[in-house]
């Protein structure tokens, strides 16, 4: 599903060049539930951004579903994101003037799915995460756990092959964290590959494999 070979990335330029990823080799199989752990500054967020085509890398090879992802232009990257990837963020990143159902349906808007059809699909997913009654509420009217469940529903609507979650429980209390993790595990059981970045051991322990990152290099692959 994912294959990274000697991926490097630096920020800045010239004398101020600051390497963040110093040669990452990594494999994730289809259907895996993997967590990436590391202290802050270890490069785990950068790695997730590279995996999510949100950021470019300087050298190395990244194969996503067998396709080479080097030198994508913005439009192609957007199309790949739209087709293959779903994102779940720590701060949810819901659009605050759109209702839950509209937020969930938004990715399909960029795939030019008709409004009725995509809203119907969004309602199904909200039902799945137990938020049918909240469909027409704005994010500001919901709790953190509810918002994250809306975000998960949004990440699922394009039927992605890979979901990338950046500290999905970082802003949630313990009980809500467990609920959200249950939902993510549920999703993974349907065959969707999932990579979760976290710094919480407890969360990492709920995944099948933990990849540890240290100072821009993979410390252990958890295999």
């Amino acid at each position, binding site marked *: 599903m994912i294959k990274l070979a000697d991926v490097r990335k630096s920020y800045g330029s010239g004398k101020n060049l600051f390497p963040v990823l110093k040669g990452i080799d990594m494999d994730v199989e289809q259907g895996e539930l993997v967590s990436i752990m590391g202290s802050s500054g270890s490069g785990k967020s950068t790695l997730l951004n590279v995996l999510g085509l*949100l950021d470019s890398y300087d050298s190395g090879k990244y194969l996503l579903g067998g396709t080479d992802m080097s030198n994508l232009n*913005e439009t192609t990257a957007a*199309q790949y994101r739209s087709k293959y990837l779903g*994102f779940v*963020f720590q*701060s949810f*990143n819901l*659009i605050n003037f759109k209702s839950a159902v509209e937020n969930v349906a938004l990715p399909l808007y*960029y795939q030019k799915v008709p409004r009725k059809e995509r809203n119907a699909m969004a309602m199904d997913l909200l039902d799945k995460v137990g938020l049918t009654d909240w469909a027409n509420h704005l994010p500001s009217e919901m709790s953190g756990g509810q918002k994250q469940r809306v975000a998960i529903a949004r990440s699922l609507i394009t039927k992605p092959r890979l979901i990338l979650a950046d500290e999905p429980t970082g802003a949630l209390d313990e009980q809500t964290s467990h609920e959200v993790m249950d939902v993510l595990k549920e999703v993974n059981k349907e065959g969707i590959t999932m990579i979760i970045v976290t710094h919480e051991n407890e969360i990492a322990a709920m995944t099948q494999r933990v990849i540890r990152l240290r100072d821009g290099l993979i410390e252990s692959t958890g295999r």
Partner: protein
Amino acid sequence: MFDVDKWLEIFHTIITNPLRTVLTGVSVALGIFILVVMQGLGFGLQNGVYKNMQDDAINSLYIHSWATSLPYKGLNAGREITYKNEDLQHVVDKYEEVTTFSGRMGMWGVAMEYGSETQNFSLRGVHPGHLELERSIVTGGRFINAGDVADARKITVLGKTIVEDLFRDKTPIGEYVKMNGVLFRVVGTFEDPGSKWENRNAYVPITTAQRVYGRNDQVDMFMVTTGELSLTESIEMAAEIDAYLKEKHVVHPDDKRAITVHNNNESFAEMVNVFTGIRTFIWAVGVFTLLAGIIGVANIMSIIVKERTKEIGVRKALGATPASVLGLIIQEAVFLTTIAGSIGLVAGVVLLEVLAMFIDHEFFTNPTINFGVCLGALILLIIAGALSGLLPAIRAVRIRPVEALRDE
């Protein structure tokens, strides 16, 4: 183009900060309003002056005489020059372009008497061609014809003011008016739309005027049309006539006062130039005013983009292409300028319509703008809207999702 979600988003951003939207809108509306009103006023001035110029045929030469200003060939300055029938005849014979002509022999303060009414008006002896040259309109009966001139008939065509003052409600045609003691039969009435003073004239055949009032073969001034001659050709013709008359009447070639050949072709061309200049200037002022409004819109749009950085980043992560982000911002800018601009446009047009109803001055009439100008202004607005959205939109496109999503 019609995409419900896009429009919902546009309305949302517009409604979120109504004061900002209104202020921006006002600057654009004001810009187009000023542009439209100034164009309208320009047209009003132009219409007024053109209408005034239509008082006389545009393709004509008016040939006047005065006292000499320079001594010449032993003759002192200050000598009065008076044209004769033969001067007019020479011009008419020499230039086949002359289709219409008229001499003019005028008298001021002529006592005109009908029934118990006596008032002073002007009398003018003219040829039949005077009607066309002066652009008078016959409102009843007929104008002077060739037979009247040939036989020096004592007939007259009265101006509107004379008819009103002497005859009140009666029909003047067929009646007799005594002018300085000589009876004239009224054969027609006329009106001059260009100038009110023309309506205080009574026209009589030029031969009659010369004979009855003892002016022999004198002509105060005369006028001829230049037919289809171009501007340059008419200027040449005027110069030739000027030279001929100066030589014949022994006038110094540099004397600018004794003989004047006024070329209406030339004045009209000059006037057209002046108005083209004025209108261009007005456009420039209007466009710059509009520009100020557009800079305002661009400013607002870039603030909006900045505020929505995170949201745009999220959209990109969810699959928004650069083109869709660009389209969203530009469409919003175009929408804002078009709505605000249309309000300004309509307000301007309404103001001009109201002005047009109340103002009818000699030099200012009908200050409405035509459809072309409206259309031009609208196209300008839409282009302006797109331009004002372009820079902020490019900035939005450059937002990298990573930076936008970074938690602060």
